[in-house]
C-alpha cells in the first residue's frame, strides 16, 4: 500500500514544476500563431454563423412570406409576439423541458457514469449497451417511440394498468412526460460518458486514504467522487441546458407541438411560424429571442458555477 502511494506521488510530483519550461521554449522557437492560423475558421464562422445571425436580426423587423419582396414593418413582429399567449407558453414549456432534462438526467448519468468507471465484470458490455441510444439519430429515436407508444398497438395497449387508455400524445401532461422521457433515453448515455471519464480521472489515492480513515462506500461517493465531479457536472449541465433550449426534432416528430399548442416549445414555434405559416419575420424574431436567451442562460450558469475559473481538480489543489 505505502509503496504504491509513494510511487504515485513521485510520479505526480515532478509534473507541476518543470512542465512549463519546455512549452515556453518551444513557443519562442515556433513563434506565436499569427492571425493567419485563425483565418479559415474565422471566415467560416463569419459566413455560416455571424452573417446569417445578422440577416435574421434584420428579417425580424420585416414582413416576408418568401414570395413578395420583404417589407420593413419596424417592431410589429416583436410587439405581436409580446401579446402572443402561445409565445409565452412556448417559453415556459421550453424552460420546463430543459429543467426536467437536467433534473432527471443528471443524477441518472452520475450514477451510471461512476458505476461504469469501476472494474466490475461485464461492465464494458453493459456500457456499450447503454451507449446505443446515443448512436441513433433523434429522428429515428422519435419515430421509434411514437410507434412503441401507440395506444392501440404499442406498449400502452399491453400495460393498461400503467397507461390507462394510452392517450399519451393527446394530453399536455403526458405529452410533456413523453418528450422528457425520450430525450432522457437518448441523451443520458452521452452525459454518462462525461461522468465516466471524469470519475476515472479522480486520483485513486484519495480513495485509498479514505479507506484508511475508515470511510465506507457511500461516504466515499459523497465526499470524494461528487466533489471531484464538479467540473464535469457543470460541463454536462451546460450542454443539457443548451440542448434543452434548442430541442426540436423530438417535438416535430412526436407531437407536432400538439395537441393544439400544448407542447409548442419555442424552437418548434419558430419553425411553425417561419416554415409552416410562411411568416419569416415573426419566425426570425423568435429565433433571435431564443439565441439571446440561450446565451444569457449559459453565461449565468458559467458565472454562478465558477466554470470560467475552472478550478483544478488535480491532486492536492481541490
Amino acid at each position, binding site marked *: 500500500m505505502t509503496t504504491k502511494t509513494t510511487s504515485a506521488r513521485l510520479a505526480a510530483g515532478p509534473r507541476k514544476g518543470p512542465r512549463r519550461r519546455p512549452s515556453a521554449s518551444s513557443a519562442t*522557437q*515556433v*513563434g506565436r500563431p*499569427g492571425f*493567419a*492560423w485563425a*483565418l*479559415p475558421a474565422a*471566415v467560416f464562422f463569419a*459566413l455560416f454563423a455571424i452573417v446569417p445571425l445578422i440577416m435574421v436580426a434584420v428579417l425580424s423587423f420585416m414582413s416576408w*412570406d*418568401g*414570395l*413578395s419582396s420583404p417589407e420593413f414593418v419596424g417592431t410589429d413582429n416583436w410587439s405581436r409576439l409580446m401579446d402572443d399567449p402561445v409565445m409565452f407558453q412556448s417559453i415556459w414549456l421550453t424552460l420546463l423541458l430543459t429543467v426536467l432534462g437536467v433534473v432527471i438526467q443528471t443524477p441518472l448519468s452520475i450514477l451510471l457514469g461512476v458505476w461504469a468507471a469501476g472494474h466490475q465484470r461485464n461492465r464494458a458490455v453493459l456500457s456499450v449497451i447503454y451507449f446505443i441510444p446515443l448512436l441513433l439519430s433523434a429522428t429515428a429515436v422519435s*419515430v421509434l417511440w*411514437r*410507434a412503441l*407508444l*401507440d*395506444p*392501440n*398497438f404499442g406498449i400502452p395497449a399491453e400495460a393498461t394498468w400503467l397507461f390507462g*387508455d*394510452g*392517450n*399519451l*400524445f*393527446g394530453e399536455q401532461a403526458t405529452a410533456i412526460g413523453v418528450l422528457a422521457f425520450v430525450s432522457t433515453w437518448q441523451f443520458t448515455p452521452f452525459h454518462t460518458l462525461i461522468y465516466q471519464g471524469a470519475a476515472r480521472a479522480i486520483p485513486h489515492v484519495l480513495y485509498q486514504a479514505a479507506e484508511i480513515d475508515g470511510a465506507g462506500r457511500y461516504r466515499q461517493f459523497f465526499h470524494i467522487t461528487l466533489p471531484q465531479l464538479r467540473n464535469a457536472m457543470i460541463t454536462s449541465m451546460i450542454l443539457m441546458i443548451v440542448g434543452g433550449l434548442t430541442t426540436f426534432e423530438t417535438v416535430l416528430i412526436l407531437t*407536432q407541438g*400538439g*395537441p*393544439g*399548442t400544448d407542447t409548442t416549445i419555442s424552437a418548434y414555434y419558430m419553425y*411553425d411560424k417561419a*416554415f*409552416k*405559416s*410562411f*411568416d419569416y419575420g415573426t419566425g426570425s424574431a423568435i429565433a433571435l429571442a431564443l439565441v439571446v436567451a440561450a446565451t444569457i442562460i449559459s453565461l449565468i450558469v458559467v458565472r454562478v458555477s465558477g466554470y470560467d475559473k475552472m478550478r483544478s481538480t488535480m491532486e492536492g489543489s481541490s
Partner: protein
Amino acid sequence: MKTRARLPRLVACGATLALAVTLSACGGGGGGSSADDDKIHVLVYGDATNKVEKRIVDTFNKTSDVKVVLDTIPGADYQKKLQTIISTPQAPDVFFNWGGGSIKPFVKADLLLPLDDFIEKDPGLENNFLPSVFNNAVVDGKPYGIPMRGTQPVLLFHNKKVLDEAGVKPPKTWDELLDVVGKLKDAGVTPIALGGGDVWPTQMWFQYLYDRVAGPGLFEKAVGGDKSAWESADSKKALGMIRELVDAGAFGKNYDSVKYTNGGSVQLVSSGKAGFELMGSWYYSQQLTDHKAFAEKDLGYTAFPTVEGGKGDAANVAGNTNNYYSVMKKTKHPEAVAEFLKLMYSDDFVKAQLDIGNLPTTTNTDKFIDSSGTPEYSRFQYDLVADAPSFQLSWDQAYPQKASSDMHKAVQQFFNGQLDADGFIKAMQALPTE
C-alpha cells in the same frame, strides 16, 4: 527552425485563398441556365404516381423540339421548397399544385400565366375535364391550372365484418350514424377510427358537416374574406353536431395519439378494433398495400351520411378535387407548354392513371373504367364525383398555405374541448384569407 514556422503559415494563407476562390465561384453559378433554353422544367410532388408523369414526358419528348425535364421533390418537402424557389430564377416552367388556396398567393404575386389564351386555341383544355374539378383552379375568374392526376373524394370506409357482428348497416343519415355509434360501442369496438395525431383527418369531419348543414356557400364566403360566415347559426349548428359525436364516444378517447400517416388508424379498421374511418379515396390502395386480405374481402365504402334539414345537397362531396399543373408567366415556351398540357386529357394518360389506382377527372375517363384494376370502386368514385353539385376542397388547401397551421390547431383544440364553439369561431376568423 524558421522555415518550419513559415510553412504552416503559407498553407493557411493558401487555404484561405482557395476558399475565397471557391466562394466567388459559387456566386457565378447562375450562368448555367443558358443551356436550358430549349427545355421546359416541370416540377412535381415526388411519389409513386411519378411513373405516370415520366411516361407522359417521354411521350411528349419523342415528338417535340422543346424537351420537358421532370423534376420531383419528395412529398413532405414539396410545398416548402416550391414556395422557396418560385420567385427565383430557379423556378420551374410548370408545377404541380392543389388548386384553390395553394396557388392564390402566386396569382396575387403575379407569377402565374392565366390559361385563357391556351383554352381559346384549344377549348378541349377546358371541355375535356369535369367542370366541378376544373373550376377549382379558377382564381378571380381566370383559369390557372389543368387537372393532372386523379380526384380524391373523402368517403366513409368501414369493416364489413365488424358491422355484421354488431348487427348494423352503414348509416345513410346522421341519426343513423349516431345510432350505429352507440351499437358499435356496446359491441366493444371503437366506432370510428381517427388519426387525430395528424389533425387533417379530424378536419375532414368539419368539412363534410359544414357542407351538409350550411351548403358550400358558408365556406365560400369565409374563404373569400367574409369572416362573419363563421358566426352564423349554421356554423354553430355544425359545431354542435361535431361536439355531440365526440361526446358520444364515436372516436374513443385516445384518437389524438393515433396517426393515419404511420398506419395506426388504418390498422384499427383492418384488425376489427374499429368500425369506420373517414378518409380520402387513396385509403383503398393504402389498405390494399398494408392489409391485402382485408381490403379484398371486408373493406366497404359509402358516401358521407346526409343531414336532415341541412341546406347542403346530400350528393355534395369533399376532399381533394384533383392536382393541377400551373404555368409560370416567365416561361419562354408557352406554345410547347400548351402542347404538353393537352396530353392531360389523352387516352394514354387516363389509362396509365387508372392502372395505378388513380381516377382522372376527364370526360373520357368513363370509357376506360371497366377495364381498370378495381372497376367497381373506380365506378363508385367516378359517379360520386360526376354527380356532385359541389366538390368542397379540403379546408387547409382552400385557404392559403400560411393559414393551415393555425387552422389545424383550432380544429384539434375544438375536438378536444380546449376551445368551445365561440373560441373555434374566433380562431377561424383570425385566419389570413389571402
